[in-house]
């Protein structure tokens, strides 16, 4: 019979591993943000205050193509809506009251929720006592804190590093951004309806770029993609779809 003490070591080790992975990823966020025209301090503010990777990439993506502030904010916020659903799922597990909900909310992202769900107990036994949520809570906090520290460290190194380059375009950094968006998208393309959603949004965005003000095509294409998805039945899987972790 394994005890909570045994599982704890494994959880902390996994949390540090995931933190190192996302930290490496933050290097490219920091570099791209500075290449997009943000200062090092603005870039760091996004990683501390926004702290949700896909929204951060999307915000600098819209700003760099000349999109207006409202569109950049709307795009980041729409991508961040999934965190609301993670929070709904985490609320009964964490059982937080008062101000403690504030740090819990900030750390509610793909990876921390994914790790907590992997250790969630449904009263069916498992390594700890039935219904014991200590492993899930530990997984959430350890993963969230590990990523918060290493994501911000990676952002700083990437932002300062990119600032040292004379002309980031020479190094093909303008191709790094679409590659980053594709890598964020990739784990969600497991089904044909989802691929159809992505394909139609991509084509719509490119087709509307000559016609609309910068940034707007992203939002219109997003609406086209969601409409295509609702008609084609994509995203119907009730639980797993929205807890699918990004890399």
């Amino acid at each position: 019979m394994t005890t909570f003490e045994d599982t704890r070591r494994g959880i902390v080790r996994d949390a540090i591993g995931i933190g190192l992975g996302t930290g490496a990823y933050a290097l490219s966020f920091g570099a791209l943000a500075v290449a997009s025209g943000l200062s090092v301090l603005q870039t760091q503010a996004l990683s501390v205050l926004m702290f949700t990777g896909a929204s951060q990439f999307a915000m600098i993506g819209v700003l760099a193509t000349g999109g207006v502030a409202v569109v950049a904010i709307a795009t980041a916020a729409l991508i961040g809506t999934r965190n609301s659903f993670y929070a709904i799922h985490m609320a009964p597990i964490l059982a937080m009251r008062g101000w403690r909900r504030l740090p819990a909310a900030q750390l509610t992202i793909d990876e921390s929720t994914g790790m907590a769900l992997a250790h969630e107990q449904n009263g069916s036994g498992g390594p700890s006592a039935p219904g014991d949520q200590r492993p899930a809570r530990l997984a959430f906090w350890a993963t969230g804190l590990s990523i918060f520290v290493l994501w911000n460290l990676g952002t700083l190194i990437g932002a300062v590093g990119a600032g040292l380059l004379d002309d980031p375009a020479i190094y093909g950094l303008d191709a790094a951004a679409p590659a980053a968006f594709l890598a964020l998208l990739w784990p969600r393309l497991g089904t044909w309806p989802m691929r159809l959603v992505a394909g139609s949004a991509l084509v719509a965005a490119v087709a509307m770029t000559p016609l609309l003000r910068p940034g707007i095509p992203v939002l219109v294409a997003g609406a086209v993609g969601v409409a295509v998805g609702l008609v084609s039945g994509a995203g119907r899987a009730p639980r797993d779809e929205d807890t699918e972790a990004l890399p």
Partner: protein
Amino acid sequence: MIWATVLIGSATCFLLKLAGYVVPEHWLEAPAVRRATALIPVALLAALVGIWTFTTQSEVTVDARLLGLATAVVALLLRAPFLVVIVSAAAVTAIARAMGWLP
């Protein structure tokens, strides 16, 4: 202006996270809302891939970034880590330009 965008965007994203802890569950549990939430990141990220690969200013263009994106696809199919995907895409794009294959 960038500061306002950064701060308002960050506050909005934080409030979205906090909402899940403070609002009654049934507000956000409607099936249509759940499905749309699964679709939004896919549609918006795909739109950004398209714009960053195939447009310059407000024109549709095909240049060396296409080779970079193709490299990223191959890297992702090979299950390469995130950083390898990004660096290989940037490297192939830079090489294609240096060799004069594509602008």
